[in-house]
């Protein structure tokens, strides 16, 4: 019996050694360890062995079984590795990959997401207010004098609807600043608002589209200062444009802020040396200022107790300036040419 078991082991090991494919190794496995396999049958015969030797033979049979199993497993592994390296040899890694059919988000969507995230990280919450507005929210409450040029037919789109006794004509808001009034009327300070929306002005040329996007910040609290406005805008500029881009604020004039600023950043093309695109090394980014006391009042907030700062910039502008996209006609941004949209 012992000799028979050893013989089976040797036979099995030499089959395994010679096997050159996974199929033949499976065959060998069946031949020895299968239901009618040689070892299986031999093990069945152990009960015929005299009782005093049966335990020792049983142990040997187990050893043989384990040895064969181990040899099969290791040979299998060995064969798998060989076949894989064979496949790898057949791959030409320089052949083109099969493209996954991924689409594209619009430039503006991508910019809005980034802007939202940056301001979110310093506590500004995005809101949404009407695009079609009453004059009162877009102009009067923002301290625009009645005869301000922005209020005439040349600059703002008006809607052919009956005007409101209380709020005046209906129009397409020319700036996200109307959201300042909406925000103040519906919330109590402290306020940290980010309003990103479509805005409309009656202009169409290489630098202007009649519809565009602005993002507006508004903060209202006790004891806000020009220093806070600077800190907030600088944080945005560093986060959006990069740590080496500097910010400067300089005097400007808006009806709804006092003091008012124009915010410039280091020119992203010449990096401050001065070029065709910029003004002596600086690029104009947008407006900002301390909320005018009349505007706070119109928003139902006591200007003796609270102060605010606000900024309103163009989404298109910050995006195109950062990317140096060289889009010489802004109207392209709102065209639906796939050749354009698929680039981003």
């Amino acid at each position, binding site marked *: 019996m012992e000799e028979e078991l050893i013989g089976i082991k040797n036979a099995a090991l030499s089959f395994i050694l010679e096997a050159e494919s996974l199929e033949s190794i499976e065959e060998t496995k069946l031949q020895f360890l299968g239901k009618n396999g040689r070892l299986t049958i031999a093990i069945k015969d152990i009960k015929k062995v005299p009782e005093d030797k049966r335990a020792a033979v049983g142990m040997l049979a187990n050893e043989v079984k384990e040895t064969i199993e181990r040899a099969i497993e290791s040979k299998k592994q060995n064969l798998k590795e060989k076949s894989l390296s064979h496949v790898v040899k057949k791959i030409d890694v320089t052949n083109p990959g099969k493209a996954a059919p*991924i*689409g*594209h*988000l*619009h430039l503006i*969507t991508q910019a809005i*997401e980034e802007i939202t995230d940056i301001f979110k990280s*310093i*506590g500004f*919450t*995005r809101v949404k207010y*009407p*695009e*079609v507005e009453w004059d009162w929210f877009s102009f009067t409450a923002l301290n625009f004098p009645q005869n301000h040029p922005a209020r005439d*037919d040349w600059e703002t*789109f*008006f*809607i*052919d*609807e009956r005007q409101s006794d209380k709020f005046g004509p*209906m129009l*397409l808001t020319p700036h996200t600043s109307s959201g300042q009034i909406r925000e103040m009327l519906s*919330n109590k300070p402290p*306020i*940290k608002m980010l309003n990103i929306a*479509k805005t*409309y002005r*009656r202009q*169409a040329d290489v630098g202007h589209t*009649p*519809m565009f996007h602005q993002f507006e910040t508004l903060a209202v*609290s006790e*004891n806000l*200062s*020009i*220093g*806070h406005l*600077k*800190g*907030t805008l600088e*944080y945005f500029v560093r986060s959006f444009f990069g740590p080496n881009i500097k910010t*400067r604020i*300089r*005097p*400007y*004039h808006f009806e709804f802020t*006092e*003091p*008012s600023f124009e915010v410039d950043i280091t020119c992203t093309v010449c990096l401050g040396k001065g070029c065709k695109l910029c*003004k*002596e090394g*600086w690029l104009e980014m947008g407006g900002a200022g301390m909320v005018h006391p009349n505007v706070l009042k119109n928003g139902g907030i006591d200007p003796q107790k609270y102060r605010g700062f606000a900024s309103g910039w163009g989404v298109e502008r910050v995006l195109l300036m950062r990317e140096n996209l060289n889009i010489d006609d802004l109207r392209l*941004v*709102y*065209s*639906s040419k*796939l*050749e354009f*949209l*698929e680039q981003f």
Partner: protein
Amino acid sequence: MNILIPTSWLREHLATKASDEMIAEILSASSVSVEKIRKRNDESIYDIEVTTNRPDLMSISGIAREANAALISHGIESKFSPISINQTINKGNSFPIDVKSDSKIVNRICAIIMAIRVGRSPKLFIDRLEACGIRSLNNVIDVTNYVMREVGHPTHVFDLDRLNTNYLTITRSEKGEQLTTLDGKTYTLLGDDIIAKDENGRIVDLLGILGTQNSVVTDQTKRILFFVDNNNPANIRNTSMNLGIRTDAAILNEKGIDPNIAMTALLRGIELYQDLADGKIESEILDIYPNKTTNRQISISNEKISDVIGAGIPLNVSKKILDSLGFIVEMDKDRLEIQIPVTRADVRIEEDIIEEIARIYGYHKIPSVIPGFFSTKSYKYHDSFYFEQRVKNAMKYLGFTEAYTYSLVSEEKYEGPIESALKIKNPLSIDMAYLRNSLVPSLLQAVEENKKRDLIQIFEISNIYEKRKSELPKETLFFAGILKEQSADFYKVKGLIIEVLKDIGVKDLIFKNTKKAGAGSSIYLGKEYLGEIEVLDTNLIDFELNFEIILKFTNVKKTYKPFAKFPAIHEDISVISTLNTQNLINEIQSVNRIISDVYLKDEYNESRTFHITYQDFEKNLTKDDVASIRAKIINHLKEGLQVQIRE
């Protein structure tokens, strides 16, 4: 509005060693933006943007005063010398022409009659005007422009003999009146323009904008009426925009010029006529100034100045800054009592004073701080923007490209009766005359723009606008898309919508046959109408959904269903029926609770094969259990619904 200023002219009023570049840099930081320094004959010309609230800076003397204040605050030595006039001329009531003005449209008129000799201006004079972008014509005209640049008030000159009148009436025009300007162009007036008429009712000037041909100075002019008129800016703006006459004078006058500098302009002009054109004064000065502006007073505390600026600025520093800008300031303990110069109509409240101090002090010196407070409202992570962005991302990764099309459309692109549309009163073009009520026409336009593409997958999420009675229109976020391909598949679009919405937890969409003409489906969530899939032709399918309704059904709640302990049993049933697939699935599922899933596996000719999963969470299902339920299903379909079963 921009102004060009040659440095030599500026330095006539500004004594400083600062370089041209330094002056530009400091002006930009503290006052007006110097956009470029241009070079002309080796001289620096500042190209300066002046904000509309500071028409007082549309002049050499105005900029010189500002530059002086800013330079001193930056520690650079500088001295400002204002325009000074040394001669005295009589003012009186015996002006040879009886000028009748209207104080509602004209604030002030200053005028004088002079004898002059027409000729060429000196070279320096011509150079300076040309550096400022003004063409030199002759010495008489050049003086008016020179004064406008130097003092900041537009002026006008008539040929007195061509004018030839005893009366001059300044009045509002009537609609339809005509005039010919000095450049020979004839205009028909719309009314409310400020005009001057002579004793015969002839229009002899379009005030504040441009002179008329019938009274303009010529080479033969011997005597002039030199005329400084300060007008109502609103009238000037309307006339200038309506007629499209954008002269330097109009651009200045529409901003509102301080009437107090009108006299300075007149006196400076007289002086220049004497120097350049052998000018002889032939009358007293006429000065009609019915509503004089008065000085205003503002009081402000040191604490407020420092609080708003965010930097402690000593009171005496604030005072010095205001002094240098021409304010008259008294220090009273910890307060400043300030008299506002009449030229500074823009300074009205404490905040205006703070701006004056802060900008000259230097914005760059104010420390930057990020405000540390947060809104008391709780922060909502899953807001509408979150879902919008998530859907956009899903669409992108499913192969769709996002478009942004204009909210404004043509009449053809408005869906439904045009009377219900929100109409733009003053559209730029007929292509953008209405606010849209559907995104689909715009996306179809996009397909048209990409005609050569066989495969187009685009989408947009934007507002649509619906009229409401005496309220602002309803703005509703819509989600629309288009699939264009060879034999476009309705089920592909349906599957896309289901998967994209499933990603934001919106389930159980109900698809019904569309009530609209053509093929497609109306989609519901519960009882709410969500939108449509429209099969436009074999290659073109669009869909449009109301995103606000989608938002109502979003669900980010995570649920866990334990794994089944007992194996499921699967089998297929093939049927022939006129019922729709959803009905059949519902009917099959209604037979027994252990039918955990039914879906359409295959469709061939009239026959549909459903794959049924039997799953009991309590026990092992036996073959007999399943056989009996299957029999019930078949019975229910056959007997109850006349469905033919294919065994």
